């Protein structure tokens, strides 16, 4: 186990370094003028542009800058987002820390993914149960057909159509935006024209109503794959001798399914859930851009398409932090798999599922 963990950590560090190097070099060698984040390029004197370069640390070679970035990274400093830079009253340059921005956005993305995963389980397990209980029945065929349709539907299409119908056309739920779970954000130094303090939205109720459509989108994207897997597993289980024995002993249907059949699918499902973490983060980019949620994907899109050019520290920060999270989650999936079933040496994705996860 110790050797396994060491190996995983070393590969993870190598891959993360490689990833940050590629991103850094691709972006650092583009002929765009990042000084525009600090000075007005149209009117600035060359000396002012030089000072801006100095402040942004652009006076060195790409390799020196990359080394410097790694050094600061080792101290847990992701740098300051260029797009947030400004000169304060004290004449100093201020900006938002990338680490903090990603942390806040990760809360939003996390809310989408966790809620969506819960909804996914709530939808997929009962459907798989009713489907596996009576194979080839009308109900089973419907469920299989739905999962076939689901597998061919773009998450974007699900999102856009749900937003269009439930959010915009029928107005059942708020179509866009995000509300904090902990309560409305304080806006102390800001007043509307009539002198009122603007009320941000927040709290459990508004958080939930704003996230129902994103959760549904997330769950519907994954539900087809999960239902397929669960149904196959349950069909296998329902044909085993111990289930027949339980039936012969007169156990009720509820007990047979709940006590004897379901525990067999808990393990593969939890492994699958942990392994799909990467796909989930990818899917949440679509969800965030459809429902305008300020999550990690949204942060990355803004960093790439900013008015004054790309925001290198923010791009690197988002890439690095999400890659770390995914590597950690995959390692966790490996460990869960080993704990649940010691026969497993390494988990791998199945063919079609693997191809499809390329989508995100």
């Amino acid at each position: 186990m110790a050797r396994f963990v060491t190996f995983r950590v070393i590969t993870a560090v190598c891959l993360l370094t490689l990833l940050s190097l590629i991103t850094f070099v691709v972006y650092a060698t583009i002929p765009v003028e990042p000084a525009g984040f600090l000075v007005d390029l149209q009117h600035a004197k060359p000396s002012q542009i030089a000072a801006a370069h100095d402040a942004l640390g652009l006076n060195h070679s790409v390799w020196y800058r990359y080394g410097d970035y790694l050094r600061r990274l080792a101290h847990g400093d992701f740098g300051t987002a260029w797009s947030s830079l400004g000169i304060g009253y004290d004449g100093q340059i201020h900006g938002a820390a990338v680490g903090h921005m990603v942390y806040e956005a990760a809360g939003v993305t996390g809310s989408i993914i966790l809620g969506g995963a819960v909804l996914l389980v709530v939808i997929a397990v009962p459907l798989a149960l009713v489907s596996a209980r009576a194979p080839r029945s009308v109900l089973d065929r419907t469920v299989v057909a739905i999962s076939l349709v689901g597998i061919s539907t773009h998450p974007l299409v699900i999102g856009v159509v749900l937003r269009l119908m439930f959010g915009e056309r029928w107005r059942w739920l708020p179509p866009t935006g995000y509300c904090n779970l902990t309560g409305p954000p304080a806006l102390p130094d800001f007043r509307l024209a009539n002198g009122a303090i603007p009320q941000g939205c927040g709290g459990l109720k508004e958080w939930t109503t704003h996230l129902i459509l994103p959760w549904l989108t997330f769950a519907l994207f994954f539900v087809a794959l999960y239902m397929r897997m669960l149904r196959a597993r349950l069909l296998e289980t329902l044909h085993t001798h111990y289930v027949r024995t339980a039936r012969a002993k007169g156990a009720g249907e509820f007990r047979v399914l709940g006590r004897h059949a379901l525990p067999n699918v808990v393990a593969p499902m939890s492994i699958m859930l942990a392994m799909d973490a990467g796909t989930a983060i990818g899917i949440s980019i679509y969800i965030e851009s459809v429902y305008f949620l300020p999550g990690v994907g949204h942060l990355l899109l803004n960093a790439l398409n900013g008015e004054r050019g790309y925001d290198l520290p923010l791009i690197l920060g988002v890439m690095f932090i999400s890659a770390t999270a995914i590597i950690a989650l995959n390692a966790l999936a490996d460990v869960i798999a080993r704990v649940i079933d010691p026969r497993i040496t390494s988990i791998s994705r199945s063919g079609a599922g693997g191809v499809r996860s390329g989508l995100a």
Partner: protein
Amino acid sequence: MSAGARARRTLRGDKVLFASALAALLLVASVAIGPPILSAALGHTSDEPFPYATDPIFRKPVDPLTKVYDTTREYSDESGYQRVAPPKGTQKTWFFAGADSSLGRDELLRLLEGGRTSLEVAVGGTLLAMVIGLLIGMVGGFLGGLVDAAFARFTEFVMAFPLMLLVIAIGTQTNNHLDAITLGFLPPGVFALIVLIGGFTWFYPARVIRTQVAELRNREFVEAAVMIGAKDSRILRTHVLPHVLPTALVYLTLLVPVNVLLEAGITFLGVGIHLPTPSWGNLLSTTWGTVLSPTAFDARRATVWLTLLPSLMIFITVFTFNQLGEGLREAFDTEGRG
């Protein structure tokens, strides 16, 4: 029985496979030769704006199955503000799928031409991915060793990583350089997207083929070929390649729908095909409430059809090619182990 004969027999026996192969052919044919035939039959092209295909005040495009005046000029009364019907004798023309936007172009023609772009991207990206995947998978699986192990770890990492983050982070930059390359027949932006998609999806076929070749490596006929002194390149070409071709074909078919979805996704996020070139991705995303057109949905200005029709086209394509791929997988009896 050879793989080809078995495939032909299955094609006759398997109705789903036959139907999906037919549907896929029909789809490709309709986006390839459909637009010129249809515009000749209807009498207008996909780029012509028809003012009478939109609402006079809010410019809301007409719904599907409408006949509109066949004129690109808009007539008004003496005040110059009120729209009036064109002069008597103006012909009407069919808009089977309605109009595409406030410009009033034919949505059906745009859908078909967008489909051509999308399929060009998807098929091109798939072919590129398959070429890279075959090369790396075969060489890696055959030679084994350190390079192969490093590749396997790298592939695992990439497969776990949210591809979309990488694609949009790298793609925003590379597309600026590659957008103008058209190779003489592609719309602008397609080549850049082919390179981007092909460069990020070759891992899946490579992995499957690597596993298969590593198994074949230890079979008797390969050992025999090694023993009589055949070169590695010859063994790979004449002994190994025929065995992995069915798998390659299955993955070729299964990657097309994934890449259709990817094109739509990338374009939706503002990195892929740009207007005025239509593609299913930007037909879906230039309607309302997206990064590309961040206005809220307004029932007076937008119709739900402009969202539903491209969605439907994407769905039909993906569904067809998925069924075809699964059918082929069964026909060839290849284990699609990832």
